[in-house]
């Protein structure tokens, strides 16, 4: 380290402005060698911007940052040559092979040619990529791509690694392996700073910085942060969930409500506590008890209460018949031996499945297991190679205009028009679904209120945060009140509170009769769903509700969904023999 700094990172009153708005403000941060520090906070809090400033990619508009003893403005090239920085998403060269990508990274980082073969072997072995040396990066599964990206950032053995949402869009198994690689790397004495929306990742940190609206509002160990929410969290298990929102109106001390699968958690201002009147109102719904805070609770308590972007109460205009689908099908989805081939590759293999009307059905599986392809088949976006499917009482096939009016689809990419405003996107999708003008106006007003987008109508979509885009994509797919809603990784990269809110809305849609098919990599979200389907290499290896899936496994039932998921995949692997391991 140059200049004998004792800190790897030292930011002093650092800020960054884009136009008139400050993405990062007055950040003071010190990170010592060997520390692992996590940035958490609501979407749009400035985590990515701060990481880019530390990576010397963005110059601070105010204050200064020193990284590895170098100034991020004047000595940026010294920093970028030394650190590893892994941005969000997939950023390698799709058409280069695994080896070529790694060799390129090594060359630009000036790794000595004599050391490269050894490092290459070690890294790719650690990542489990040795069998795929000559495969194009674009043909790897999401998990493998992320691991390869990590390898390219470790090849020059950087003293500091900056990671932006490393686990985003990666299946649980790959995420576990990614973290194993990071732990190994950390043992060499390196420093890791990363942004995350996974609370289990946050809990691995030595220290957390909680960002909100560009500021670090709290710093400390995970335990210290949790202590900030001590005495603020109350849990209740209401018999009638619908009553909760009513009971919480006019309660200024309430900071937020989280709809967990089996309980509702109410966070109040820790200084004020739970008022007697509110306690009485809540107790009418069921027993209320104080609860030790979790990392998610910290979110509710630390974020600023007047945040318009994330109203924690689901506000709902009267007459929630809007939630009910226009058409009530007898059966949500029914498929018979549905199969889709891409060349010799079976993306969806003989899937027979039934989803009842009004059910929330989760498709779980590793990256590349066939979940997205299955959804695309069911939406009529891809023709089946063989087999058949009925969705909302319509046979899926060519010219199924009727099907399109009965389904809603939200793709992984939150497909919206980035150059249009929120309002213009909604208007457009309302017209695409041929809603008459008055109905369109009502539907848009309702969707905007329900998804918490009120006040953003005139903003350009390209400038929204990921979570806002997610809500807008959902709003656009709900306007025509579909009978079956397909949600492909709807909560990817969205902060925990937004996820809870999202699931509350999905729950209400389902209660009103909408069938929902959803994929997710946050396995704890499976608990919100009525039934689960586990996919592995194109096949549906198990389907059922959580208790029956647990019971069907021999031996001691797995405690978490993740263990359950891994147990089924293990069983499928051994069941089809050793051959299945190597093929894609």
């Amino acid at each position, binding site marked *: 380290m140059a200049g004998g700094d004792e800190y790897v990172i030292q930011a002093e009153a650092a800020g960054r402005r884009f136009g008139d708005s400050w993405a990062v403000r007055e950040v003071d941060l010190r990170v010592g060698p060997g520390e692992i520090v996590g940035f958490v906070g609501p979407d749009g809090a400035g985590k990515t911007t701060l990481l880019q400033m530390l990576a010397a990619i963005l110059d601070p508009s105010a204050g200064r940052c020193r990284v590895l003893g170098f100034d991020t403005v004047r000595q940026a090239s010294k920093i970028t040559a030394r650190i590893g920085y892994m941005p969000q998403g997939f950023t390698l060269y799709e058409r280069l092979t695994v080896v070529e990508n790694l060799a390129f990274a090594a060359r630009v980082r000036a790794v000595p040619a004599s050391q490269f073969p050894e490092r290459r072997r070690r890294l790719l072995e650690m990542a489990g990529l040795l069998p795929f040396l000559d495969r194009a990066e674009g043909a790897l599964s999401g998990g493998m791509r992320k691991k390869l990206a990590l390898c390219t950032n470790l090849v020059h053995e950087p003293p500091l690694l900056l990671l932006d949402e490393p686990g985003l869009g990666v299946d649980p198994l790959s995420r576990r392996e990614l973290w194993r690689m990071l732990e190994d790397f950390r043992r060499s004495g390196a420093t890791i700073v990363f942004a995350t929306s996974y609370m289990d990742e946050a809990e691995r940190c030595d220290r957390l910085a909680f960002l909100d609206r560009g500021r670090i509002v709290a710093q400390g160990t995970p335990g210290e942060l949790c202590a900030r929410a001590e005495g603020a969290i109350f849990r209740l298990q209401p018999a009638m969930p619908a009553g909760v929102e009513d009971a919480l109106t006019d309660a200024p001390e309430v900071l937020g409500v989280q709809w967990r699968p089996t309980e509702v958690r109410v966070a109040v201002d820790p200084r004020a506590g739970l008022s007697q009147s509110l306690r009485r109102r809540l107790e009418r719904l069921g027993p209320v008890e104080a609860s030790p805070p979790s990392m998610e609770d910290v979110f509710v308590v630390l974020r600023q209460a007047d945040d318009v972007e994330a109203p924690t109460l689901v506000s709902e205009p009267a007459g929630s018949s809007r939630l009910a689908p226009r058409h009530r099908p007898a059966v949500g989805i029914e498929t018979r031996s549905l199969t889709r081939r891409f060349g010799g590759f079976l993306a969806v293999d003989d899937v027979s499945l039934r989803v009842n009307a009004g059910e929330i059905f989760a498709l779980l599986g590793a990256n590349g297991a066939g979940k997205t392809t299955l959804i695309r088949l069911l939406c009529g976006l891809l023709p089946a190679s063989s087999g058949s499917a009925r969705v909302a009482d319509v046979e899926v096939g060519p010219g199924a205009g009727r099907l399109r009016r009965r389904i809603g689809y939200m793709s992984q*990419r939150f497909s919206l028009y980035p150059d249009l405003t929120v309002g213009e996107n909604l208007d457009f999708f309302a017209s695409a*679904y041929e809603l008459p003008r008055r109905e369109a106006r009502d539907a848009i007003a309702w969707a905007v209120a329900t998804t918490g987008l009120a006040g953003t109508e005139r903003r350009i979509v390209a400038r929204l945060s990921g979570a806002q885009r997610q809500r807008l994509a959902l709003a656009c797919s709900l306007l025509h009140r579909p009978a079956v809603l397909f949600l492909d990784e709807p909560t990817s990269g969205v902060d925990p509170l937004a996820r809870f809110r999202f699931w509350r809305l999905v729950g209400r849609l389902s209660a009103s009769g909408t069938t929902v098919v959803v994929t997710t990599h946050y396995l704890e979200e499976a608990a919100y769903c009525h039934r689960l389907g586990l996919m592995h290499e194109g096949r549906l290896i198990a389907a059922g509700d959580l208790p029956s899936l647990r019971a069907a496994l021999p031996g001691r039932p797995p405690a978490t969904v993740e263990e359950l998921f891994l147990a089924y995949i293990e069983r499928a692997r051994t069941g089809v023999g050793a051959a299945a391991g190597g093929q894609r």
Partner: protein
Amino acid sequence: MPTRLAGLVIKEAIQFLRDRVMLILVLWLYTIEVVICTLALSFEVREMPLATVDLDRTPASRALVESFLVTDAFASAGRAASAAEASEWLQAGRARAALVVPQGFQRALARGGTPAVQILLDGTNSNVAAQARGYALQIVGRFRSSTAAGAGSGRGARPVVRIWYNPDQTYTSFMVLSMVALAALMVGVICPAASIVRERETGTIEQLRVTPVRTGELLLAKTLPTLVMGLLSVFPSLLIAWWFGVPLRGSLLLFLGLTAVFLVSAVAIGVLIAAISRTLQQALLLSFFGLFPMMFLSGTVAPVESMPEVLQTLSLASPLRHYLDITLGIFLKGAGLEALWPHALILVATGVPLFGLAIWIFGREAR
């Protein structure tokens, strides 16, 4: 208009108007680009350095040399001692043309013969060379007629009057109009192609496919903003044309109408390109692959008449050639629909199948 189509058209219009860079580029293509290209691509021969080799050294030979040098087309690059030296000058670039008057020139003239003079031209730029050759022949022709009319001694040979120098500016007019036509082609092809491929890249085209929106409706909506913009852009171009002194002898309304027909056929090419490209990069490359042959075959750069037979036939398939004929016809000849309808018909006949093909390819993606 049905709700869906109206929604699509409104969306396209907003997106088109919001993209400032695109708007400025379109305007640029129709105005400044036209000016630059007209000025730069004029193959006018002006002050071309001419080496003179006078082996006769008589009044007649001097008069001939003089008649070359008094024109705007040629300027003296000096006297060379021999044809060999002149050709060295040509090699070295000191001269771009050489005039060799043979010994006995005056004597042959006096005998009423037709003595040959040699003209050497630097053919590196064949267009310029051809132009210079034309001038040279004219000069010699005039010289011959003037000497024939005179006493034959060449004594009375006055220096030839200023050369006929593009008197009605046909070349400039041609250049301005073909650049406007080229702008229409580029805008017509690239705008819709880029906007469709952008939808593919953001994934919205897939989102549309789960709505009742039909492919044909989407493509129709993609056509309209380009059409409107293309027609409006004609007006600043008219100003440019007026500034260059290009006459408008025919009907403006007819010109606008046929421009619309041409734009639709250009949009059809753009839509087809979008149907087979996956990324913006591919679409742009493909557009250029298409645009260049269309441009070269249209007669904008080189006259169609000077192309090999096969290419002349092939040029009939270039929409730009027909539009160029329409544009030149209306502006310079004052032609009406009765003369231009075959061109319009061919534009429609090429555009419609391309559109059909594009719709078919888009439709196949879902299969």
